[in-house]
């Protein structure tokens, strides 16, 4: 069994690598050797390479989804706006270095004076960039706290699209795992590289920000590029077949990136991020029959084809009826309720990850999906889709939404003179 697991994982990684090569993101990794050591990065292909940090949009959104995630939400603990802006500048420099496969600080894990703690924590020494991307977002409470206070003089710059999410039917949210003033999404093909990045950002931020919650994800559940095979979530089904993909340039403009005039200028070229930690009751799911599972999802488990169709990428026929006169894809099937045709064409770019956070003390895995979705306006996309799902999705029997977050992710850092949040705080 474990042999199969390894080869499957490798297959996915290689599929990702192919795409990355096409997109031209494979930088000569050897020249960026972390800690100066030689590595076999070139042998490992583009999956080990670097993704450019600078650009029109932030990396980590349409970047072909890497295999691993470490996501963190921070509370800002300082009242000093200047300190926060300084931190964002310092973070930006560290992020640019780490995504290139270098140490977090200029001295590095072993290059400083012996009496001082190193300015990099060291666990990524010798590891390639691994397509690390770091993506920042700003939460509603950065603009106005729970008491309505304008903490940093930003209240007037809060986009209307960054509205607090409503309560959805069945939400079992834990406040200590939800929200946050800032977030950073770290994705990489090596979990150690992702964790290293978050750990070093948290350390740099001591006194200015404090980790509110964080989440590891071990396997991507969406493909964000046509070159990637569709992976499976922990229900064993292909997930993200109908996802927005990097190649859909027109749709990305329409559905993903904030456009001029949508809201404040500082968000133009950015995107809105919704996170949901969704516990899956895998033990009860695993006892349900194959036919029940397929009816709940609305797709076959093997190929991922919509019920009644033959191929994974066939469009679901929502009008088709079976011999019994009932819809082939049930009224409560997940694929029907989430389908763009049910929501005026609204789509999401999903890039969620499977998680298993140990066990729950009751003999069950604490497992599920850390849902991540980017979009142009959650009020027109995530909110109506999730409202419908929360109300009617047959899958809800096996799900618990335990954490929720919404963040405004600004456009990309243009060059070495730019930094995270410059357009917001400028």
């Amino acid at each position, binding site marked *: 069994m474990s042999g199969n697991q390894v080869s499957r994982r490798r297959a996915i990684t290689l599929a990702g690598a192919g795409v990355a090569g096409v997109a031209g993101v494979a930088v000569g990794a050897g020249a960026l050797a972390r800690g100066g050591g030689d590595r076999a990065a070139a042998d490992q292909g583009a999956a080990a390479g670097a993704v450019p940090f600078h650009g029109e949009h932030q990396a980590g959104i349409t970047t072909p989804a890497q295999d691993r995630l470490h996501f963190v939400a921070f509370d800002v603990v300082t009242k000093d706006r200047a300190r926060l802006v300084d931190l964002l500048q310092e973070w930006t420099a560290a992020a640019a270095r780490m995504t290139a496969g270098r140490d977090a600080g200029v001295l590095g894990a072993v290059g400083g004076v012996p009496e001082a703690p190193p300015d990099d924590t060291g666990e990524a020494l010798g590891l390639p960039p691994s397509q690390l991307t770091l993506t920042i977002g700003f939460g509603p409470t950065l603009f106005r706290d729970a008491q309505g206070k304008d903490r940093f003089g930003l209240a007037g710059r809060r986009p209307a699209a960054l509205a607090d999410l409503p*309560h959805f*039917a069945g939400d079992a949210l834990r406040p200590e795992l939800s929200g946050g003033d800032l977030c950073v999404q770290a994705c990489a093909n090596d979990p150690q590289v992702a964790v290293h990045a978050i750990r070093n950002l948290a350390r740099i931020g001591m006194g200015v920000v404090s980790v509110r919650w964080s989440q590891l994800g071990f396997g991507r559940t969406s493909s964000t590029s046509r070159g990637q095979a569709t992976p499976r979530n922990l229900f064993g089904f292909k997930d993200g077949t109908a996802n927005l993909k990097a190649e859909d340039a027109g749709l990305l403009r329409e559905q993903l990136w904030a456009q001029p005039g949508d809201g404040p200028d500082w968000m133009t070229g950015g995107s809105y991020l919704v996170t949901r930690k969704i516990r899956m009751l895998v033990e009860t799911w695993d*006892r*349900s029959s194959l036919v029940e599972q397929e009816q709940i999802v609305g797709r076959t488990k093997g190929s991922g084809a919509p019920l009644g169709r033959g191929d994974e990428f066939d469009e679901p026929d929502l009008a088709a009826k079976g011999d019994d006169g009932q819809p082939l894809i049930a009224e409560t099937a997940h694929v029907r309720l989430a389908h763009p045709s049910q929501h005026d064409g609204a789509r999401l770019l999903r890039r969620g990850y499977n998680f298993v956070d140990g066990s729950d*003390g009751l*003999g069950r895995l604490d497992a599920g999906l850390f849902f991540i979705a980017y979009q142009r306006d959650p009020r027109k996309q995530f909110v109506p889709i999730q409202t419908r799902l929360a*109300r009617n999705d047959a899958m809800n029997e096996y799900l618990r939404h335990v954490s929720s977050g919404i963040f405004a992710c600004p456009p990309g850092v243009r060059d070495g003179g730019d930094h995270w949040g410059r357009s917001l705080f400028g």
Partner: protein
Amino acid sequence: MRTTRFLALAATGVLATTGVAACGGAEKDGAAGDGGPITVKANDTTCEVGRTDLPAGQTSFKVTNSGAKVTEFYIYAAGDRVMGEVENIAPGLSRELRVELPAGTYETACKPGMIGKGIRGALKVSGTAATVAPDAALAEATASYQRYVNSQTAALLTKTEEFVAAVKAGDVAKAKALYPVARTYWERIEPVAESFGDLDPKIDGREEVIEEGMEFTGFHRIEKDLWTTGDISKDGPIADQLLVDVKAIVAKANAEKLTPLQLANGAKALLDEVASGKITGEEERYSHTDLWDFNANLEGSKAAIASLRPALEQRSPELVAQLDKEFANVETALGKHRDGDGWKLHTALSKADLKELSDSINALAEPISKVAAVVAR
């Protein structure tokens, strides 16, 4: 009047002798073979059945409760398959049960306090036993379970009426006492009730399933008021609506005929309810009476399996044996948490207690998940 064809069991005599033999084979003042009602004298500690050796065919039992607790009377075939029952016999009252019994070995049971295995006695019915064709056994499963649902909905209605009356009278103590009892009948048949999508959330919706702009109503709304503020002075309209909704669902449930496959899935769904809602304490977050629901879900699951039992005995006797063993294990694990006629609060259980219950439910739910495929073949 029941019109169901009764069919003999393929495997009688497999009943474990776990019943409490409170009455011997006494025939002292029971009716003779003249077809008159057999008397059952029930009180809080005994259950005297006037006659325990009968000819096959139609029989009547007259159950008189001289105890202080409300009682129930059951006739069980192997695996606690309900052949007939009367629920909710109040102290001082008599109720009659008419039932058609084919030849076989049965158990009678009185359940003072309406809880637990009850006071058991043996019942032997003699006559010619026909062989059951597999399909006939499945057809009987549907009818058998429908009888069960009808008995539960009748008691659900009665107990909900009492609960609603207590709420409207502002009697907090009485309403609190009735709350888990009324819900027992709901929880036993939850998969049937839940199949009526719009009524279920109105009756049984938890606070978090209510969307913005919707009103939080039903059992759990009143539960919240009873156990948090203790102020139910404004709950009259909610209680009235609860009764209206329960009446509507009772009428629908009584008319519902579940297929054997639905029964099998219902038995599994009830255990899923336990695993995902009761062990965690999610369901009864204010009253903490989750173990009442746990027990009711378990009983409901067992009743659905019992209805399928003749068919399962024919098709997969080893699965039946496994289910019997695992049901007994869960009952033993749960039985440790009895508290008088009821159950300890969820908050009184340790994490280790809950883990033991969770493990026992998982051990039972795995074989139960195999029942549907056996029924379908």
